[in-house]
């Protein structure tokens, strides 16, 4: 499942933040490597919520640092559902 979720996250980041797919990997920091700021983080979570249909708790946003963190959070929510 990890690969499928990663591809979707990659697709959203590419489209929303005008990045190249090659820039995005599981270990990349969203802030340090991809240059997202707090507004971008909220918009990313919003896009993921729309895509997957569940709600991220606000504090969850602050625990996300890397692309892999997002993929992990999504997988845990998908498994719970």
């Amino acid at each position, binding site marked *: 499942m990890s690969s499928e979720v990663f591809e979707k996250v990659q697709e959203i980041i590419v489209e929303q933040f*005008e990045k190249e797919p090659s820039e995005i990997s599981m270990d990349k920091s969203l802030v340090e490597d991809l240059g997202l700021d707090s*507004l971008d983080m909220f*918009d990313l979570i*919003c896009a993921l919520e*729309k895509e997957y249909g569940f709600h991220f708790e606000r504090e969850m946003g602050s625990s996300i640092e890397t692309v892999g963190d997002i993929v992990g959070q999504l997988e845990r929510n998908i498994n719970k559902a």
Partner: protein
Amino acid sequence: MRRVVITGTGFYSPIGDNMADLRSSLEQMKSGIRFMNEWSGVNGLDARIAGVVPVSDFSEIPRAYRRTMDRVAMMCALSLKRAVAQSGLDVSQISAHKTGISFGSAMGGLETLFEYAEDVSHNSGFGRQNATAFLRFMSHTVAANLAVMFGVIGRNIPTSSACTASSQAIGAGYESIKYGMSDVMLVGGGEGLHYVEAGIFDSMGATAIGFNDNAQSASRPFDISRSGLIVSEGSGALVLEEYEYAKARGAVILGEIVGYATGCDGSHITLPSERGMEQVMRDALADAKLNPEDIGYINAHATATPKGDIFESIAVHHVFGHNTPISSIKGYTGHMFGGGGAFESIVSLMALNESFLPANKNLETIDPACAPLDYIRSHRETKVKAVMNNNFAFGGINTSIIIKKI
């Protein structure tokens, strides 16, 4: 007293986004108003035509800035970028403490606001809304976003007085420099087109009806068969500088703003007052220390509404008599609302510098209820020393700007 000069301009309009195209459209009397196929799914609209800026690619603006901009802010941003380039100001001068900004629009980011409201109401509630939506639709979105993009740290004066939003921005910039608070002011405004505007003015009986199949003839300032305004979009930006500051850095000076006034009718929320219009023109002339006969061209507000054009013509007649050439360019563009004041000031500057006075498009038979004025019927090649640009807004807010050759 500190003098205020213009050293750069930039704009988007339905009839061009550069001086050559603008002049060509005015010479050929080509309108930028067209039928809006895009509105075919909107119920209940009477006027289905609009003035459209044929530009949709704003990728020139880096994403970090573009993400919080609606169409109106993007048009203003690129207009200002061109104006700054023409002025030759460098980054350190733009980011100096005494460089400020004043920009406005009537509606903020209407397209984003409408999408946001629709999504909250019908789909997602507040759970899945973008964090950037408000920053795109807030009333001061243009001034706020442009200050960030250009790195302005001086005064920021957003304006939002509908049809006088950008003329008041020019006035705020002029006064900031004249009275010593700023050396440079980046000023202007804009409006992004949305069918809600057409619907709003339909509801007030203010749009032109009967021209959906004849868009070129729809906007008819001062003509007897005019029936209302045509909504449109666009933007205008000007770089204003204190004269000695501009001269010291060797800037090319395009013109000097010598007079500005703003006033209020204080009488009716929509019905204009000829007394208020007359007063603001007299106040601008007094500020400029000029007499009416010094003005060689008047760029009228004239939106082609049945009453507004009459009141305006009477007010002009009271101040100037019947000999001063006058035209409204809304016959070509429609009503750009928050962008009108700045764009029409740029057209007035063109009249001054190119000795080109544009004609009133679609003026076939002058309404006998309008005062006897020198309505320009076909464009003229006439040298003028000073020009006046007038704008009037709902709420009885009036502005008058006088620009002179230096």
